[in-house]
């Protein structure tokens, strides 16, 4: 089995074989000059970006300015650590557009809470990563017209997953230490983590503040780290978690002292490509788990429908504010406001976003609301209860992250929307229930990475890290 670090990419041996722990120690001792390091990182990501399209913006000036500060202070849990931020998370003064043309040129006047926390701990923000517009997709192909589709780091004709595709790609491809902040509504961290062969951790809903995250589905959106090692994931998670007065849905997260005793695989999740199944089972065995098998029939049957209705209903209202009035794309207004709004929205947003707005609006209209939106909320409760039942008995549930290998971009183009939505089958349930989960590389099939997903009980995020303790030999 191949490990990520031995995939044969050209790495600078002096710089790259470090995780955050080692790196920060060297920054603090003065062994690493942060400005020098950051310059190399920027050079590297610029070069990668010219071939792979992972960034919507590279924040060179901001990064060097922060690097100088950290070089002087030598403080912070993440002193000097290069971090990229998914485009839908606001960075003050840096174009933040959720990869949508309707927000072209928009520079937020404030930092998202996660960004502020990272900067406060000495992290260096190196850029904004490309994504499916507003998070609408699983292959990072639904980007606005002025953005380029990112490519899979292992095979340039394939998808790097989505919607946090740029984050997954750069985390794998960067020759240096790198952590990216992704965001998941229905699987947007786990999917690119799987397709790019990196760690992608999605915390319990509410554990990380969403202040400064452009809403997709406000009851579903979760911010989480993507990294080259488990410990890096944990270190960044520990910095960004916690209650935030600016996000009323955020929770005070307390470390849970529980033990990981029993694990189970989810039966329905293994109806996948047999090669993927074998790799994942092998990995589970290599991790030394003795597992049982559970069945989640409600999740399997209804999660996708319930998720789609809730996410699209919420998205259709969350996107209403984008109308060309106060920020972003603002052409000259020559008509009545409603015609102007329609014009701006028709011209800028992608077909997929339009599809979700229309479906979501339909699902909450009088006469359909009971049958779709409200029923979906009830089904969501059933799904949460089904997971809750299982977590009474088990501490961790296991499944492959994605049912397929990273597909060729040309193939994805010809898939129907419903076929595309079904690709999220394995990640939708946990996201709908707001449960913490991580995708890690389980191995490779035909040179393409396969992801294993560990799912923990609500607010028992640390169980996931406990279950994987020592995985990187640390």
């Amino acid at each position, binding site marked *: 089995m191949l490990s990520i670090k031995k995939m044969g990419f050209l790495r600078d041996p002096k710089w790259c074989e470090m995780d955050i722990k080692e790196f920060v120690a060297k920054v603090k001792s003065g062994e690493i000059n942060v400005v020098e390091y950051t310059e190399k990182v920027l050079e590297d990501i610029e070069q990668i970006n010219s071939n792979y399209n992972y960034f919507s913006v590279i924040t060179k000036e901001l990064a060097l300015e922060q690097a100088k500060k950290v070089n002087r202070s030598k403080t912070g849990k993440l002193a000097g650590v290069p971090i990229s931020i998914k485009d839908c*998370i606001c960075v003050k003064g840096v174009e933040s557009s959720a990869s949508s043309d309707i927000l072209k040129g928009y520079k937020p006047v*404030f930092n998202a809470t996660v960004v502020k926390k990272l900067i406060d701990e000495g992290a260096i923000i190196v850029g904004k990563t490309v994504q499916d517009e507003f998070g609408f997709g699983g292959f990072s192909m639904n980007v606005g017209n002025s953005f380029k589709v990112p490519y899979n780091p292992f095979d340039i004709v394939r998808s790097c997953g989505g919607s946090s595709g740029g984050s997954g790609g750069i985390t794998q491809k960067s020759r240096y230490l790198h952590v990216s902040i992704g965001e998941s509504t229905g699987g947007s961290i786990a999917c690119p983590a799987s397709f790019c062969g990196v760690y992608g951790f999605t915390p319990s809903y509410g554990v990380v503040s969403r202040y400064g995250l452009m*809403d997709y589905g406000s009851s579903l959106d979760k911010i989480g780290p993507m990294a080259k090692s488990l410990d890096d994931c944990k270190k960044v998670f520990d910095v960004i978690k916690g209650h935030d007065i600016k996000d009323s849905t955020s929770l005070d997260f307390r470390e849970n002292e529980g033990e990981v005793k029993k694990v189970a695989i989810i039966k329905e999740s293994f109806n996948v490509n047999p090669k993927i199944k074998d790799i994942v089972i092998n990995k589970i065995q290599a991790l030394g788990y003795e597992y049982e098998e559970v069945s989640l029939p409600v999740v399997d049957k209804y999660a996708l429908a319930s998720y789609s209705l809730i996410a699209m209903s*919420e998205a*259709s209202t969350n996107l209403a*504010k984008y109308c060309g009035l*106060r*920020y972003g794309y603002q052409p000259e207004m020559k008509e009545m406001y409603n015609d102007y709004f329609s014009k701006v929205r028709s011209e800028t947003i992608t077909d997929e976003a339009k599809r979700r707005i229309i479906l979501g609006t339909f699902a909450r209209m009088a006469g359909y609301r009971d049958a779709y939106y409200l029923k979906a909320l009830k089904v969501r409760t059933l799904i949460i209860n089904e997971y809750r039942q299982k977590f009474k008995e088990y501490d961790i549930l296991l499944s492959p992250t994605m049912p397929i290998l990273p597909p060729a971009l040309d193939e994805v183009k010809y898939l129907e929307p419903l076929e595309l939505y079904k690709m999220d089958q394995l990640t939708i349930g946990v996201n709908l229930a707001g449960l913490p989960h991580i995708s890690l590389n389980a191995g490779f099939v035909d040179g393409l990475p396969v992801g294993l997903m560990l799912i923990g009980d609500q607010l028992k995020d640390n169980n996931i890290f406990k279950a994987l303790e020592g995985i990187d030999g640390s």
Partner: protein
Amino acid sequence: MEVKIGLEVHCQLNTKSKLFCGCKNDVSDVPNVFTCPTCLGHPGAKPVFNKVVLDKALEVALALKCNINKTILFSRKSYFFPDLPNNYQITQYEFPLAEKGMFDGIRITRLHIEEDPGRLVHKGSFVLIDYNRSGTPLIEIVTEPDITSPERAKDFLNKLVNALEYLGVYSRSSEASLRCDVNVSINGGNRVEVKNVNGINDVRKVLEYEIDRQQIQQAKQETRGWDSEKCITYEMRTKESEQDYGYITESNLPSFEISDIMIESAESKLPELPHVKAKRFMGDYRITPEDAEVLTTEIELADLFEAVARKIDPVLAARWLRRELVKLLSLNKKKMKEIEIDEQQMTDLMDLYFSKKITDKIAKQLMEIIIEKPIDIKKYVEENNLMAVSDENELDKWCNEVINDNPQAVDDYLKGSENSLNFLMGKVMRLSKGKASPDLCKDMIKRKLNK
């Protein structure tokens, strides 16, 4: 004719900050100064509920004898309009804060909390947007169609506003801070809704206009607008094109439960409301229902009355306050809270008047002075020599002068004209600069002429 009127009253609450952000809840001549990413709808900004609004709204709900829904949950009401930053309004839909109340004999359907949008300003060919108002807390009070006439609607609204002022949640500063949607039908016909009516007087005008109109044109079930300049309603949309707001949960705000302690605390803070106070005044001070009603319209006036009534005859005090102070205030278009009258001034003034140490005329002059600026009444009367004159010699001098100068009036009086006596009295008052004690004076003139 059977008239059925229901009202939806939107009232701005006078909290320090807005409903979902820390911006100042105030008006300003400078547009867009009380704004932030949240009330401007910037991407990524989130609402945070201002719980002071809940305290105030709870008090109103309890004062209107409503049942409280303990689950607080907000919804998004979606429609596109330039003054609405998110293109949805955060409001309460499935679970309003309160339901099924009663006020002034009118059933209250529901009461809920919501945010105000910004404001459009029309300047020449431009439309400008001012977001200072965006996110101002509102309560919407919806009544059952129990109101039967425009006059009754006006009366109800006046009483409601009084109650809100008593509760200290609202200030009747501008007419625009009270906005109504008015529903009206006649003789069991279709219900017509008139949207966005500003102020109580316009509500009455809308109703009068609509009742007339519906007698001539058969009413369709429709929504109409109100042109306050032309004083007419106009067609906005019919039932077929009724807006669908596609309500969904506002999932950026978690739902939560109101505790019993919170309700009890709101209940304990409830002040005595105007109608209760009026009843008590009638019992405690034996004043007339009319006096009691007028004196309780403003809490400051009611408090002044109570303070004065402890020291001098309440019936006389009530009559004086109602006839003199209230009249003078309405003449000067002033509110009690805008003037600085304290109980000492008022007690001194009434004391001097009722003990006939100053005349009616001087008392009225003093009233006009004290609603402008506070003075020490006793000192002022002394320094300006305003005591009523009851000295026989002085009065005798004035009376003789008036009688000698007005032979015609004297003649008329002797022929039986009571008016002429009043005329002569007026002359004496003028001559004495209002200080002549009127009773003594009248007696003296009569005595002199009847000799």
